[in-house]
């Protein structure tokens, strides 16, 4: 143990005496480790960010889209002649036991004029359930009422981004905005909800679906673009999905196994598909970073081999005065591991700096996990042992007589 300790000290000394070379050699590892840590943090951060965004859509949410069947033939006869409707939404809420509530949604992006400006904003038509289903809260004023929905009243609620565009610095409640030739009274503002995976959720104006269909985007009957459903709980989502599917198939005349004209997606599925994308992306980037780590490791091996050749005589001297092959091997292995570990520590430090910089300057969401740091350090250790082994072995198996004769 003592001689091992002393051997480590000697390894450190010989590294320090060739300080410039040791530092340069560890640079390869430093960059590799920094790349791995930064990329991991980026992946973790992005994944977390998207998870938050998906969560911000609402809770236990199920989306039902209208998606016309691509095949020619029976279209128009079945499927109620087109999109989903208010009645579909009501039927789901009524008949599916696992469903808590349903809501309808249609949108269009169009020009809106206020007393002080105009801008293109997402105009959403929805029913009274929409606010609960999607988790929108009123900041000031109030939601529209059931009777306003039935009478197609010209009232609207407005999100923060839309306020910034149309009523900068003003209190919009009670003011009017104009869409096409119709004025609407702003009856409430929405609490900011932030980015969803699809859009800025605050860049919108919400009005009763009847008003939307009558004036903003004239629509036949009670058609809607989207039916939003909430399940009673997270683990009832699969049951709710099955029930919705059955109800809509029956209403729209599709038998079991036939491809229907609607699609059901859950929040979970969004989450999973996003996770899969980020998983692939992260794996790809880590692959690239690993290659740079490998190149760094080869660099360490190269320098260690040069070092063994240069110090052949020193190795011979050490052997002559009683160093065992294992002592020589340990010394060179410690030198290699010290180089890579130094690179690992500095690389991690660099990565922390880069992460903080990107967060502060570019507002990227990155999350550095302690386990990533641990993995980075263990990796640099493993790289040192792996790429240091062969040179160390070569040093240890030198013939002392040959080594002493070496010039």
């Amino acid at each position: 143990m003592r001689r091992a300790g002393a051997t480590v000290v000697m390894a450190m000394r010989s590294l320090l005496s060739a300080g410039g070379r040791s530092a340069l050699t560890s640079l390869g590892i430093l960059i590799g480790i920094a790349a791995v840590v930064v990329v991991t943090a980026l992946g973790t951060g992005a994944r977390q960010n998207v998870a938050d965004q998906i969560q911000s859509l609402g809770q236990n949410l199920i989306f039902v889209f209208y998606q016309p069947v691509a095949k020619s033939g029976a279209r128009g006869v079945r499927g109620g002649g087109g999109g989903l409707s208010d009645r579909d939404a009501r039927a789901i809420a009524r008949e599916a036991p696992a469903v808590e509530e349903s809501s309808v949604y249609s949108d269009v992006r169009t020009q809106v004029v206020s007393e002080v400006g105009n801008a293109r904003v997402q105009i959403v038509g929805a029913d009274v359930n929409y606010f609960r289903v999607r988790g929108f809260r009123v900041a000031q004023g109030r939601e529209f009422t059931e009777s306003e929905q039935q009478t197609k009243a010209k009232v609207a609620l407005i999100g923060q981004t839309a306020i910034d565009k149309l009523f900068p610095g003003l209190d919009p409640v009670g003011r009017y905005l104009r869409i096409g030739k119709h004025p609407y009274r702003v009856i409430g503002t929405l609490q900011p909800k932030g980015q969803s995976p699809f859009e800025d959720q605050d860049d919108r104006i919400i009005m009763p679906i009847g008003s939307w269909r009558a004036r903003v985007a004239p629509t036949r009957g009670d058609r809607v673009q989207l039916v939003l459903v909430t399940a009673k709980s997270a683990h009832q989502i699969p049951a709710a999905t099955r029930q919705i599917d059955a109800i809509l198939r029956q209403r729209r005349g599709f038998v079991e196994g036939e491809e229907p004209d609607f699609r059901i997606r859950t929040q979970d599925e969004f989450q999973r598909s996003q996770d899969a994308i980020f998983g692939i992306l992260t794996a790809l980037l880590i692959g690239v970073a690993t290659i740079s780590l490998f190149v760094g490791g080869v660099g360490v091996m190269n320098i260690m081999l040069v070092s063994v050749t240069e110090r052949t005589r020193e190795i011979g001297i050490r052997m002559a005065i009683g160093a065992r092959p294992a002592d020589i091997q340990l010394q060179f292995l410690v030198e290699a591991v010290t180089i890579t570990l130094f690179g690992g520590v500095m690389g991690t430090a660099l990565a922390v700096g880069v992460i903080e910089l990107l967060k502060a300057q570019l507002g990227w969401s990155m999350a550095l996990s302690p386990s990533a740091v641990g993995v980075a350090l263990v990796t640099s250790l493993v790289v040192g042992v792996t790429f240091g082994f062969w040179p160390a072995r070569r040093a240890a198996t030198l013939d002392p007589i040959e080594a002493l004769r070496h010039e």
Partner: protein
Amino acid sequence: MAELIRLRDVSKDYASGPEIVRALRNVDLDVGAGELVAVVGASGSGKSTLMNILGCLDRPTSGSYHLAEVDVTRRAADERALVRNRMIGFVFQGFNLLARTTALDNVELPLVYRGVGRSERKRRAARALEAVGLSDRVLHTPAQLSGGQQQRVAIARALVTSPPLLLADEPTGNLDTKTSYDVLAVLQSLAREHGITVLIVTHEPEIAACTERIITVRDGRIERDERVDSPRDARQLALELGAS
């Protein structure tokens, strides 16, 4: 007198391409404790091979080697390292000190491989340097020392483990005459006063004349093995040279 070295019928073959070169042929040799011996011979005579075998750096092809009554003929690399560390000190023509390493650190190196603790190492290394008259050069690196001083550091390194055998391969080859006698005087005193067996490989008759016994190697055999009736005193010779 107890024999420190006993070689019996030792031969050493080397493969040189398709041929086998016999570097040593059936050598018998006994050296007692405290003897000061010169090994002389032309290059290619086999004296280097003989010294490598005596130093446990190499193994004989046949025959046996007993060092201090222990059979060390065919030991594995680890055990030979142990024998070298415990029993043998080496002094080389080119000094072979570690560069950019202080005299003290050079001298304590064999103790590191013996597993001696740090403070004990420092103490014994300092004492060995004192014994060769270099107490005031402890923290100098080889580059800051003269040739004679470097060779004395090398001797201190060879002695620090108190080995019974010291092998010196052309120890004065890189030194001027006066310094050569200085170094030789140290080796003489080791044999006479400390009972250490010292073998010196040399090709200089003046150096050999300072030893008690001259072994001449030729064509892989010991050709002559003669006593020196009145070895010359190296210290005296050095003083004379210093005076002139």
